[in-house]
């Protein structure tokens, strides 16, 4: 057990727990942030994706020890931003959401991509989303959603 600090959704938090826990479990069980999902549990599907210092990371394969002093943002925190609104509306309009299980991860992946590269090519969009699996949409609609978000959110990234 150890007491550690990190920034979670724009707030400084302190937690006294086993540092060998997965970030995923800490977010869901200790902070009730259930937007992070456990899909595969082995880093393949991206349903548990979060932003760690503004970059997408899988919380199922991140030990809590690796977030000390860093900024963690989940879909709950990100949903309070203008960037989120632009992405959300684009996903809804383009039909990039069906069952919704992958959607928080897809949105986090989109933000991580656009934060680094505000005007990606189609290829770069596909690479940016490559760690997030969707079994409903067939991806084309999600790629369209990202392109729409880029157009609508011009200036936000």
């Amino acid at each position: 057990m150890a007491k550690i600090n990190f920034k979670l959704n724009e707030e400084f938090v302190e937690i006294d727990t086993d540092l060998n826990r997965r970030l995923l479990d800490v977010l869901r069980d200790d902070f009730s942030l259930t937007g992070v999902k456990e899909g595969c549990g082995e880093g393949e599907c991206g349903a548990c994706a979060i932003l760690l210092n503004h970059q997408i990371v899988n919380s199922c394969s991140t030990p809590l020890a690796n977030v000390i002093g860093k900024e963690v943002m989940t879909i709950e925190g990100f949903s309070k931003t203008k960037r989120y609104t632009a992405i959300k509306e684009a996903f809804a309009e383009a039909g990039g959401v069906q069952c919704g299980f992958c959607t928080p991860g897809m949105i986090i992946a989109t933000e991580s991509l656009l934060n680094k590269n505000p005007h990606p090519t189609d290829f770069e969009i596909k690479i940016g989303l490559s760690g997030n699996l969707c079994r409903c949409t067939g991806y084309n609609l999600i790629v369209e959603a990202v392109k729409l978000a880029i157009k609508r959110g011009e200036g936000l990234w």
Partner: protein
Amino acid sequence: MVKAYLPKTLEECLKMLNDFDLKVVAGGTDVLIQNRAPSQLPIGYKKDVCYILQIDELRKIYEDDQYLYIGSAVSLEEIMDSMIVPEILRKTILEMASPAIRHTATLAGNIANASPAGDSLVTLYLLDAEVEIRSMHHLRRMKVSDFITGVRRIELAKDELISKIIIPKFEFDQAYFKKVGPRLSDAISKVAFAGAYKLEGKKIMDFRVSFGAVNVTVVRELEIEKKIVSNTVKDIKKMQETIVSWYEKVINPIDDQRSNKAYRKVVALNLLREFIENLNL
């Protein structure tokens, strides 16, 4: 309960490794999966853990006249984005895993994991990369190809830490990495290939090829390369099937869930053929 050690400096870390029996974890993207526990339980490590991502000394990429140095806690994404890293290594990393994994996984982790299908290893063998290893008492360097001795086997003592990856600088006329997998990203290779050459006039003065996922470790045959060097491009193209037959003897893939022996062998040798056919004057 397994203990977590969090060294802030390299010195502190080496002291911990000297005093205790610890599992070193950087990004954790492989280690966590290999030690996966049921959901909601702590990671199923078999022994106490030392987390090294907070050590600044291990987080640098820099170069001198002869070498490029990559700290063992630098993420794959940082390496991929660094303009001083050879293009072939940057492109290899682009085809490894996904952004989420590249943001925390490390090159040293891919080496220490010593998987026969580790993509970066194919390129590191090709570039004659070395690892720098430290303990409280010594500092040593070793070629990656000697450091990895078998499937998940490395030459690392319990008190030692990989501190850097060192890549000799060399200008090739062409160098590329090619991966064969079910999709471009987020997939483990069925076969991987890397090739590079340097010409002097019409002669080849440097010729290198390496193969991944076709044997227990990456295959690179210095003896075969020696026989090829100093021939003209024209002669090498004429020798193509002879060269393929030399490599055929050392390419011994296995059947597994990702692919099978026969497919892997044919594809590996075809990638070699393609490389020879595309040698340019």
